[in-house]
């Protein structure tokens, strides 16, 4: 019988993703003997890498990143967008690494949205049509599915539908008709584009619906779909539940820099909702993740991007994705981090990862201000500034005002970084970060496996 106190540890990335959530979730699960990992946002685009101390490597996408740890469950909440085909492929890889019960240890809330092949194809066609102005989408159809859900509601496919092929067939036909009608002009304009051929053929394949319904039913036979209240049972158990976030808060659907953001809520908001509706009885610890330097995958603002760092710090896992384009590296940006912390709300401590990679940095420094090349009058209201020198990004008054958000993004993309040098010492760098962000550093990571993590302390702060 587990006698550990009931508690929840929430993980969110304070940047644009890639801060090492996977390896931190794995290490935390081992250290705390966690019983469950809950995914509370995102979907199959997640690429959370874990390398076990015995050298096995897996990129967790829809299974919780603690799946290598025997017995730890994965629960996919309704805020997760499900991609059954990718999950089948992921399970096979895990099986090849000796994890044979990944599906048995997984439950999915029946209201989780499911991506159909039509939405994935639509997403890819739109990205192809954007040419060089791509948004940095992953090409999985997540945004498309979210947008359709807002428009069509219950006509969409949900995890709870998948075991009924007749129902899936009916819904897929409806989704196909909607997508084909929407995409007609686009399909015409891409008629001769060779990149679009595979997606066009898929959309027109008469067997597609039957094949999909069959595969989805197969998927449903392997994994348990549960009612929303089942989560409460896991949460009330003694011991630790980890809430594994995807992506990063700077890509949040409202607070991220439009249009270079996602369709998912990436702050702790969904996790808070899940805890509250189940009257979570334990303590809650909220951790914000960052690397010792900054990265961004795909297009969008990145003031402290640095071409030398991009060349100097090669990433182990983030090779360029044809749908997402380049992986960029730069210095930490304190303005962006403070903005991320404001957006996120309460954060109890920081997790700083990839510290070992900083050895490759020719100089250590952080971005402490921006210089705006345009007229200072542009900055009023949205930035803390003295003349053209910007010292802070203010929270937008109305994040749903998309023209205003886009204007914020445009100005950010013109900002030039102003750096402050740092001592070339790990300890003083960490101390500087704690001071600059007014938060304790609770975990540090100097390498890929759980062995390389130092958990400094995990005392609980106030209960919810």
């Amino acid at each position: 019988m587990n006698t550990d106190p009931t508690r929840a540890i929430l993980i969110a990335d304070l940047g644009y993703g890639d801060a090492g959530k996977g390896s931190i979730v794995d290490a935390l699960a081992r250290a705390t003997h966690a019983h469950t990992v809950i995914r509370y946002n995102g979907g199959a685009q997640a690429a959370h890498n874990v390398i076990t101390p015995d050298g096995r490597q897996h990129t967790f996408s829809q299974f919780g990143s603690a799946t290598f740890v025997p017995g730890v469950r994965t629960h996919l909440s309704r805020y997760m967008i499900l991609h059954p085909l990718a999950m089948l492929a992921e399970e096979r890889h895990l099986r090849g690494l000796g994890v044979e019960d990944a599906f048995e240890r997984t439950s999915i809330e029946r209201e989780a949205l499911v991506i159909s092949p039509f939405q994935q194809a639509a997403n890819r066609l739109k990205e192809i049509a954007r040419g060089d102005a791509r948004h940095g989408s992953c090409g999985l159809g997540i945004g498309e599915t979210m947008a359709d859900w807002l428009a069509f509601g219950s006509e969409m496919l949900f995890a709870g539908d998948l075991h009924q092929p007749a129902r899936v067939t009916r819904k897929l036909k409806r989704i196909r008709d909607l997508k084909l009608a929407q995409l007609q002009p686009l399909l015409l304009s891409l008629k001769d584009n060779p990149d679009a051929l595979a997606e066009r053929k898929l959309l027109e394949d008469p067997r597609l619906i039957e094949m999909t319904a069959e595969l989805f039913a197969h998927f449903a036979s392997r994994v348990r779909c549960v009612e929303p209240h089942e989560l409460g049972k896991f949460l009330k158990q003694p011991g630790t539940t980890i809430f594994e976030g995807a992506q990063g808060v700077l890509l949040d659907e409202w607070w991220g820099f439009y249009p270079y953001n996602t369709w998912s809520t990436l702050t702790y908001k969904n996790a808070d909702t899940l805890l509250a509706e189940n009257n979570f009885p334990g303590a809650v610890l909220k951790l914000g993740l960052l690397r010792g330097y900054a990265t961004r995958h795909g297009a969008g603002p990145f003031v402290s991007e640095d071409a030398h760092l991009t060349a100097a710090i090669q990433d182990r896992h983030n090779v360029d994705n044809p749908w997402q384009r380049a992986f960029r590296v730069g210095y930490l940006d304190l303005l962006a981090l403070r903005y991320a912390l404001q957006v996120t709300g309460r954060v109890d401590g920081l997790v700083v990862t990839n510290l070992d990679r900083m050895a490759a940095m020719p100089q250590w420094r952080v971005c402490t201000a921006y210089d705006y090349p345009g007229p200072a009058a542009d900055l009023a209201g949205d930035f803390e500034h003295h003349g053209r020198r910007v010292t802070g990004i203010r929270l937008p008054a109305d994040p749903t005002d998309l023209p205003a958000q886009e204007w914020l993004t445009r100005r950010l993309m013109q900002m030039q970084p102003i750096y402050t040098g740092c001592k070339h010492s790990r300890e003083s760098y960490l101390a500087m970060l704690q001071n600059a962000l007014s938060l304790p550093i609770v975990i540090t990571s100097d390498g890929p496996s759980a062995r390389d993590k130092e958990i400094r302390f995990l005392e609980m702060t106030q209960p919810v």
Partner: protein
Amino acid sequence: MGTGRWSTDLYDEHNRYKAASGKSTFDYSDTLHNSSRDAWRVHASLNPLGVKFRESRDSAEHPNATAIAVMFDVTGSMGAVPVTLQQKLPQLLGLLLRKNYVSDPQILFGALGDATCDRIPLQVGQFESDNRMDENLENIFLEGGGGGQQTESYELGMYFIARHTAIDCWEKHGRKGYLFLIGDEMAYARVSHSEVRHLIADGLEVDIPLAEMVRELRQRYHVFYLLPKAASYGGDKTILKFWRNLLGQNVLELEDSETVCETIALAIGMMEGTIDLRAGMDDLRTYNATPETLQTVSKALANLPTSPLTARASAGTLFGLAAKALLDGKVRRRL
């Protein structure tokens, strides 16, 4: 953010599902059997014709690759072996990787028939380090002919592995790869140059005597022959003697063809010196092996000499090397 790391190809997934949900996992095989014998041909991914090299290479993810080739007889008498291999593949990999028997295993599957009468006597996949090897297995055609003569074309498989594989474990690290032949008959006495021309498209001028072929092969590979007794000639003294003459202690007799995966894994561990038989048995117990399996495997491996125990290879890390050096006595432990 991240990338769609896992395949979302609907057609692939559907084929796989169909293959798995049918009676047999060998979907390609089933499809062909339903067509006429003239239409039988080797799946393109497994065709040795014109292949220069099957390669086992180091990579960033697998810095210390170990080549492991597993070739089995697909004639009727050995029908259960490929199915067992496929079912137990995850366990084989799990043992090799999880228990660190060997660094970065890359496994190639091949299938052998009788070149004198079968339509498809030689099929060879690629060295793979993940579940793509599953696909190679799925596409293998189980011809089911053969039988009677007590002879199959194992020598063709040996020829291919000896001359058409390029393996970093040997080329870069001076470590031999592994070849496991699984079958229940004898090999032909010589590698036929005309069969080699016909099946691999090599311009071989003369036949190669079997013993010479084995000698060449063993320069780069540890070669084993697994002889399951349940197979039709199992236990036949002539066949056993034939292989013992060629390979000595590396002929492993199995009571039961169900245990090939476990036997392969432990044989590798013992050769690498990462386990002895006793430690291997303990590892199998953690995988809930039945007492019968334990007995079969321990009997098969009882006469295999164990290399001096070294530290378990820890994926080619500095730690592993240091531990090995320590045990080899190259480094004196500081007390």
